[in-house]
């Protein structure tokens, strides 16, 4: 039976395998579509949840972008003109692609949210998902000394933004820590994590803090990985 399945990756949960080239008959004569999830009864006692080939980033975020429309940044807290300066790939800006994402360093410590060295800013822009390390040597030329979310967009409209930590090349944790492109509610964060998951990442967000009426920027409790 295993010869029918080409295992792409194991998640933390061993019953969840990412596979391709699945024998057509196992899906009741249906072709697996990109990103479609199946629970496959392979004739053994256990069931195997399978995910087909990940969606592209563009495909994965399509539904999200439709539901949560792009907005102009909230510039009421902007202090310096160069916060609208669009950085480039030379400055470390990159567009998210399907995993693996190759980075020099990954966030490894328990309280990753309390560190800044491996913290990325993310923005779901109108056509791509952009990331860049918030701090570093070349950020010191900026007036405030570190990136603003509008440096990832040049001040253009975007859907939402926040902070991100890659724990390895496929595992990413995000929050909604952005004053410019503030996520509107917890469901919006859920949908972004779903899109990341459908594009092949194991993703989680840090939840919502009812007390401050904003996305949580720190971890409390177990993360709900997708």
């Amino acid at each position, binding site marked *: 039976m295993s010869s029918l399945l080409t295992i792409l990756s194991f998640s933390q949960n061993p019953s969840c395998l990412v596979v391709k080239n699945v024998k057509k008959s196992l899906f009741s004569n249906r072709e697996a579509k990109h990103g479609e999830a199946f629970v496959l009864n392979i004739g053994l006692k256990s069931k195997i949840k399978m995910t087909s080939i990940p969606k592209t980033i563009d495909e994965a975020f399509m539904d999200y972008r439709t539901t949560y429309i792009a907005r102009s940044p909230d510039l009421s807290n902007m202090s310096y003109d160069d916060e609208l300066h669009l950085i480039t790939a030379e400055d470390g800006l990159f567009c998210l692609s399907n995993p693996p994402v190759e980075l020099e360093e990954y966030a490894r410590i328990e309280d990753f*949210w309390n560190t800044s060295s491996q913290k990325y800013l993310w923005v779901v822009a109108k056509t791509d998902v952009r990331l860049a390390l918030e701090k570093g040597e070349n950020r010191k030329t900026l007036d405030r000394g570190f990136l603003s979310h509008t440096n990832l967009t040049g001040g253009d409209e975007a859907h939402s933004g926040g902070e991100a930590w890659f724990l390895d090349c496929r595992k990413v944790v995000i929050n909604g820590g*952005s004053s410019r492109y503030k996520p509107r509610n917890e469901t919006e964060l859920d949908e972004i994590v779903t899109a990341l998951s459908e594009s092949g990442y194991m993703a989680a967000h840090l939840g919502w803090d009812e*007390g401050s*009426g904003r996305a949580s*920027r*720190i971890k409390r409790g177990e993360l709900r990985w997708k």
Partner: protein
Amino acid sequence: MEMNLSPKELDQLFGPGESNDIKSRAQKSEQIFVRSQDHLAFDSAPATGLRLTAWQALNLYGLDKLREVLNYGSAILPICHNEPSSTLRERRESLGLSLIEVAKAVKVDEKAVRSAEDPNIRSPFSVLQRIAQSLALDEFMLSISHGAGGDEALAVRLRKLGSGKASFSPRLVRELNEAAWVIQQQAQLSLSRGVKSMTERFEPSPNYGNPDYPAYLHGYYLAKRTRDILSLEQDPISSMRGLLENQLHIPVIQMELPNSIAGATLSSNGHRGIVVNVRGNNENVLVRRSTLAHELGHLLWDPDQHLKNLVVDDSDSIERWDEEPNSSGSDYVEARANAFAVEFLAPRSVVLDVFTSEQEVRNGLRAVMERFGISFSAARFQIFNASDRKIDFASLQVDDIKPSVTWLAAEDYTLDFFKPRNTPISRRGRFAYEIVSAVKEHRIHESVAASWLQSSIDEYRDAIEIIQDLYHD
């Protein structure tokens, strides 16, 4: 305080204004912040946390955190993943209280207290706030500081007393924690508007007498010194509560304690205050005045090594002038405080004149009680002592030992007329007035005021006038 905000940042944080002075901009600001267990943010309608004025947010969390709010929409408050849970658990344990006992004090279920002590759970800040208060912690310091401003020496003292004395129940430990919290907050509110307790003018005295100079004689001396320092001459003290709260700026916390307890003197983080039971013998305001004077003797004159953060006085130790102290050190401390109390309320040098101004002994005794606002037993012993014990003690009797309406009104004023009605009596003292003043000056937000007075914001607003009428500067 770092002074490098651009005019634009000042506007963003505090609203439009002219001055570049951060402090004055924050003081005048109408900007409201909100804090939860984990974050500080600008106020928004959906936020369920505690509202803070800009002045509070700046003072409590500093400029860096306010800047973080500008940059990310919220600022992270906890110094590590284990805060505030570890502070709450350690404090509860160091006080020797169970989860259930804290839950009872806070009127939540045990699960809510357990959750607050779990670093993996984010609790509503209103629950954390009430738990912190019940443990005499500074709720604003939760998450940002391990220990949250609790006085560890006081906690140790309370636990020791709690495990040593049968009368010292977990309920009493909880009540004294509440008192410690009120004392600390009241002192800080007074200080934030530049009002200091006058106790700094008194140098504690380690003299508890010797065989040739009994402790009570030194108590008399200290009473005279106190009157001299306060320029009271020989006049009666028209209101002990008024004197303590309005003139000396000493927090006085009224509580309903077990009848066996008269009062206590308590120090929390260096702020000293007085706890007075309004039940038991102290239901008679004349006895209560003696208790207040007795505790004042401890508060002003006992050095820290005798006060040890807390002295709790049993009802039967107040107004006991007929016994010489035994060899126990603490009895000398109490004998001195008792002598201080009666001499402070009714100086012997004038007591005899008042007594002899009446023909009848009964009338003379009653005149002393009425003039100085002291109880029958206090008046009796003070007349006896003032006469160098020449008057027949047994003959000193009176028909009526009840206080007059004048003394009732002078000492009981906030218990009957206070609003909001749900405010516990421990918070009906000058603390309430300090709260109203702080709201008026933007030092605290009215939602903090309402939560401290355990009322809704509407009830708080309704009560402002009454509270202001009860006190003055």
